[in-house]
């Protein structure tokens, strides 16, 4: 495997006295789609926040293209080529869709390139073109998610961090959005790090997956192999062995504990 574009080694991140990330390491190869699965409170969002510089790790390193970026300010990390699609979209509610997208390109100086990317983004999400002059706060949840992804894309990133893009969306919309994510990856060569609770969608989309539990990576494998594992099936995909339900539930323990 080629040298990974993003490499996280042994990071430990705290919220005050609480250790949210307990030594997490993983790699994201250039041009790939990597997913981190985990339930509520596993520390998925914290991992992303640590990468993009909003939170600083106490220990460990984040290496992007051979350069250590931990403890760097988020706007500098962004300029290096990592954009973040935050959980809960976080669009600018009183700006129009177009202004939101322009803010995504805030760090860029080439107005021709920005105009091109604006067209490209409208190509991925035609509905945003229709809504271009509406306030972002008036969009539906799905449209806001599309806007958040597009806004991150406007920075022409090398790596895109996606935090729960499926949150609060209908299954149909989730499917559509994941299709676009794959297209962005293939067509524009953007490396994607996807953090998800929706393990089913994430495993279908990504090449490689990590499972995060209570601040630790407990499993790592290619997605094809991950879907076959019993634990993943039971705890993340909700597929249970027939007939053994009620009685087996309390006995069954995760193999990694």
């Amino acid at each position: 495997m080629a040298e990974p574009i993003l490499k996280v080694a042994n990071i430990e991140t705290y919220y005050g006295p609480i250790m949210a990330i307990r030594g997490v390491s993983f790699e994201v190869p250039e041009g790939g789609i990597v997913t981190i699965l985990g339930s509520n409170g596993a520390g998925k969002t914290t991992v992303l926040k640590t990468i993009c510089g909003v939170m600083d790790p106490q220990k460990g390193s984040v290496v992007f293209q051979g350069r250590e970026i931990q403890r760097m300010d988020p706007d500098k990390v962004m300029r290096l080529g990592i954009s973040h699609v935050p959980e809960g979209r976080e669009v600018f509610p009183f700006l129009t869709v177009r202004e939101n997208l322009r803010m995504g390109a805030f760090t860029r100086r080439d107005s021709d390139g920005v105009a091109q990317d604006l067209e490209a983004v409208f190509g991925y999400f035609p509905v945003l073109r229709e809504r271009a002059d509406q306030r972002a706060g008036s969009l539906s949840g799905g449209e806001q998610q599309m806007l958040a992804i597009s806004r991150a894309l406007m920075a022409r990133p090398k790596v895109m961090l996606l935090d729960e893009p499926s949150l609060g969306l209908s299954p149909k919309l989730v499917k559509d959005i994941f299709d676009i994510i794959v297209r962005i990856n293939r067509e524009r060569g953007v490396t994607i790090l996807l953090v998800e609770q929706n393990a089913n969608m994430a495993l279908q989309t990504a090449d490689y997956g990590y499972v995060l539990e209570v601040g630790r990576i407990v499993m790592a494998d290619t997605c094809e192999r991950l879907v076959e594992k019993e634990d993943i099936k039971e705890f993340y995909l909700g597929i249970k062995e027939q007939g053994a339900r009620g009685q087996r539930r309390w006995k069954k323990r995760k193999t990694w504990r």
Partner: protein
Amino acid sequence: MLIYKATELVNFAQGDLLMLGAFVAYMSVAWWKLDYWVAFLIAVVVVGAFGALLDAVVLRRVIGQPQFAVVMLTIGLGAMFRTFASVTWGSEIYTLPTPFGGVTTIGGVTLSHQYLSIIVGTLLLCGALYVFFTHTRIGVAMQATSQNQLAAYYMGIPVKLIFSLIWAISAGVSAVAGILLSPVTLIDTNMGLAVAFKAFAAAVLGGFGSIPGALVGGIIIGLIELYAGATLSEGLKNTAPYIVMLVVLAIRPQGLFGTLARKKV
């Protein structure tokens, strides 16, 4: 005075920045014998820079603290500025000589040029601010930062710098307001307080965060004051606007023009 309604931070020291602006202008004209326009420029730049400094040194520390802390801090700063001003300039009342003498009659209404300068100045200022906030990259980034600080960080907007700039602009604007108002209110250390309270009432009445609302609110407050002064007893003149403000808030908590932001989940 209006910007802060857009940045979701209430600055109770705004009126006192206005007072400082007027004093700086007065000093430049009366002591250093500078031209009115030069003094104007100096006051705006000095107070603007002071605003940025204030942000960098003092206010940045309370970012992330509850809103209430910011409110208390700005009230405290305002009190400090007033004391500082009365120590430096004494409690006398000064008049800033302006080049606006004479009167103009428009359609039967006679206006002194001083009032006209206030009206025109305010309109120009609002126009300029409007264009700045909606049509420049930095202006839009300022709006974005005030709406969602975290997301602004994600976009690579240098949030801290933007905050300092916002403070500089708002302090500069206060200085302009102070200079424009000085022929009417005269310059003394408490001039800012009265103005700030009225501006606050106007902003609340019009709906926080709505700039046209604040303008209309200001006009309403002015009219109420005028009529209350003419028809009611003297004491009620100054309280009437606040009574109206309370009534409006009871009926329409978001103000006359305010929009309640609803967050979609």
